[in-house]
């Protein structure tokens, strides 16, 4: 018996279906829901109740994880509106964006080669600034402007930044462990 999956993540957490959300309200709703369905509430109940609780708590975690992260939230919202962000298939990017990417990537490779944690952290900082800027654009595109095509393109760009950040984290870890 699966928990009914007809409610979307926003509805499950009692929030309006919109990109703009207050993180505090999201967290409150999530904790409220989780405090009702978490398996710890049913640890001494029957097997069935324990299983249902696990399914619900899993669902609550998934909804919270998706909505908490702006990129995941945007992608999910676009999906609800019938837009595919095409991150795997559509990799065309404007030249200036690609140039910037290449510069960052070179800096990461150089920092990695000599285990320069400070240089890596610096790129991470630049990346964070670029991300904030893009997220503001995304909020406008998905909010008042309702420009979902622009939203898809911003999601694709943000995905690039996320991947780069993962590489930086990996390089920082490697630097910490002294491996190449």
């Amino acid at each position, binding site marked *: 018996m699966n928990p009914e999956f007809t409610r979307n993540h926003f509805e499950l957490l009692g929030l309006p279906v919109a990109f703009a959300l207050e993180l505090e309200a999201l967290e409150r709703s999530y904790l409220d829901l989780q405090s009702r369905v978490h398996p710890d509430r049913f640890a*001494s109940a029957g097997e069935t109740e324990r299983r249902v609780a696990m399914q619900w708590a899993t669902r609550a975690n998934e909804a*919270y994880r998706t909505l908490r992260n702006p990129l995941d939230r945007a992608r999910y919202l676009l999906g609800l509106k019938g837009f595919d962000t095409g991150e795997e298939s559509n990799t065309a990017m404007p030249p200036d964006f690609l140039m910037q990417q290449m510069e960052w990537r070179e800096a990461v490779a150089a920092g990695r080669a000599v285990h320069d944690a400070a240089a890596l952290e610096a790129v991470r900082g630049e990346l964070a600034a670029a991300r904030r800027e893009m997220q503001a654009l995304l909020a406008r595109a998905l909010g008042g402007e309702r420009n979902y095509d622009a939203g898809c393109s911003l999601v694709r760009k943000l995905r690039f930044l996320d991947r780069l950040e993962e590489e930086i984290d990996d390089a920082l870890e490697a630097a910490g462990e002294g491996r190449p």
Partner: protein
Amino acid sequence: MSLLQISEPGESPEPHQRRLAVGIDLGTTHSLVATVRSSSAEALPDSRGRVLLPSVVRYLPDGAIHVGEDAKDRAGDDPANTIVSVKRFMGRGVADVAKFGALPYRFVDAPGMVGIETAAGLRSPVQVSAEILRTLRERAEQTLGGEIFGAVVTVPAYFDDSQRQATKDAAKLAGLNVLRLLNEPTAAAIAYGLDNASQGTFAIFDLGGGTFDLSILKLTRGVFEVLSTSGDSALGGDDFDQAIAVHWRVHHGLADASGKDTRRLLVAARQVKEALSTQEEAGADVTLSWGQQMHLKLSRAEFEQITAALVHKTLGPTRKALRDAGLKAADVDGVVLVGGATRMPHLQRAVKSHFGREPLKDLDPDQVVAIGAAIQANALAGNRSADDDWLLLDVTPLSLGLETMGGLVERVIPRNSTIPVARAQEFTTFKDGQSAMAIHVVQGERELVSDCRSLARFELRGIPPMVAGAARIAVTFQVDADGLLSVSAQEKTTGVLASVVVKPSYGLTDDEVARMLREGFDHAQADRDARLLAEQRVEAAAMLAALKAALAADGDLLSAEERESLEARSASLERAARGTDPRAVKSAVEAVNRASESFAARRMDRTIARALSGRHIGEVPTS
């Protein structure tokens, strides 16, 4: 902590009827059991007033088994049959234990997990750990005067799936009903947080005998949310002992000391290490196997120098946990020290300098984990009172993934995902007409399968012939609230299904656990039946009480026939529980379980609907 005042459907329907529940810290060097009595948690001493049970098990040729101090005292004379620090071998293979350096055991290569040849025959680390847990269970039952309803057993946060599964198997083997596996730093945070009514972001720095964990938690209004966890499941106080022993070997020309001498040197090293926490210099007398007596000395400065690299090893995981939580060291409001090894002054200095603040150590670092586990056990058993309500959200420590073409790992669930968590990933066939697919589940952060830990392999068979790339195979990973993984795979166009609970490669199946249990009780058949019956009766009583409460609260969700059928089944369960056949009770419990499935689901839906209708925490009437 009086925020979430709601009577939950799964909680004890009769508040005055307390269930005996314990928290057990199954440690590398020592273990202990704690419980909540008259609303405060305390560790339970043995008949001689000792709280800490050395995690040492000695097997004698006549079949006798000594656990604790008795076994520890003889470790120097009978090292091969006296298993010390068995926790380091849980879920580990021969190649893993080789990394721990010279050890006086006769290891046997068994699939997935080592075996140890002892005077009493081949023993698995699971069986050795079960002896420790059984001793603690008996201590608790004698002290509390009754059957234990359930236990929360702690594991290092950085334990992987094999190590967790091995721990749960050991608890089952010891006759414990495992309410939850709880991460050690999280347990410490519960004890600490509830004690101090703390709010904010905390780092729990937990260096035990054999494992290191660093967890970052956010404590807010009765919620313990683990943001990230990191560590090293093969770094602990034992390594500092080893470093001292190696130092002495080198400086006193003891290179070819035997197994007995290895153990004696380690015992002396441990004494000296502990003394150096308060003294500038310490020494110990050792009698070697060839009769030579030696006084081995070490100064604190020497000790700090030879173990500086070990202290430094804790900083990598610390930085990683902070980064994963998106925090800097300065964002942390408090650092809590847990584990006996955190008594070392140079370690405390390193922690202080990394976080830029004095670490907190006002709770006994040896007991805080068991105390937290006892508090959690008490809540899970349904004993919590309305003003003692809190929620715990933990994470999975290591990423889980699948092997793809070329020996690469495709990550399915990233580390530090809040549990329970489920994630599905789609794969396809790469050959025309391919009818089976091998699924290899791995755990770890590296990109190559060979650098990660292999958890399980299974096959999805019966894929109908299709051209390459046409099949749609969804592999679903589910991690439950104990942090244990199960995996299922389904071909979507045909519905062919394969699933496994990820049993570690050492492959203790439920049947094998049952067999070991039987063997353990062979000489006491009557005991065993009585125990089984008692367990089933506890289960039956819990289920009947829960069902009664559920019917009273939400009986309107059932049609008259449904209610009648449920009541009939619960009446036969009551009858069976009055009888003496444990199997009859078990099958009656299962019948009630099946019959109440849709009722349970409907009740949960109602809970959600109520939550969504705008009633928030605190507004729901307590009952």
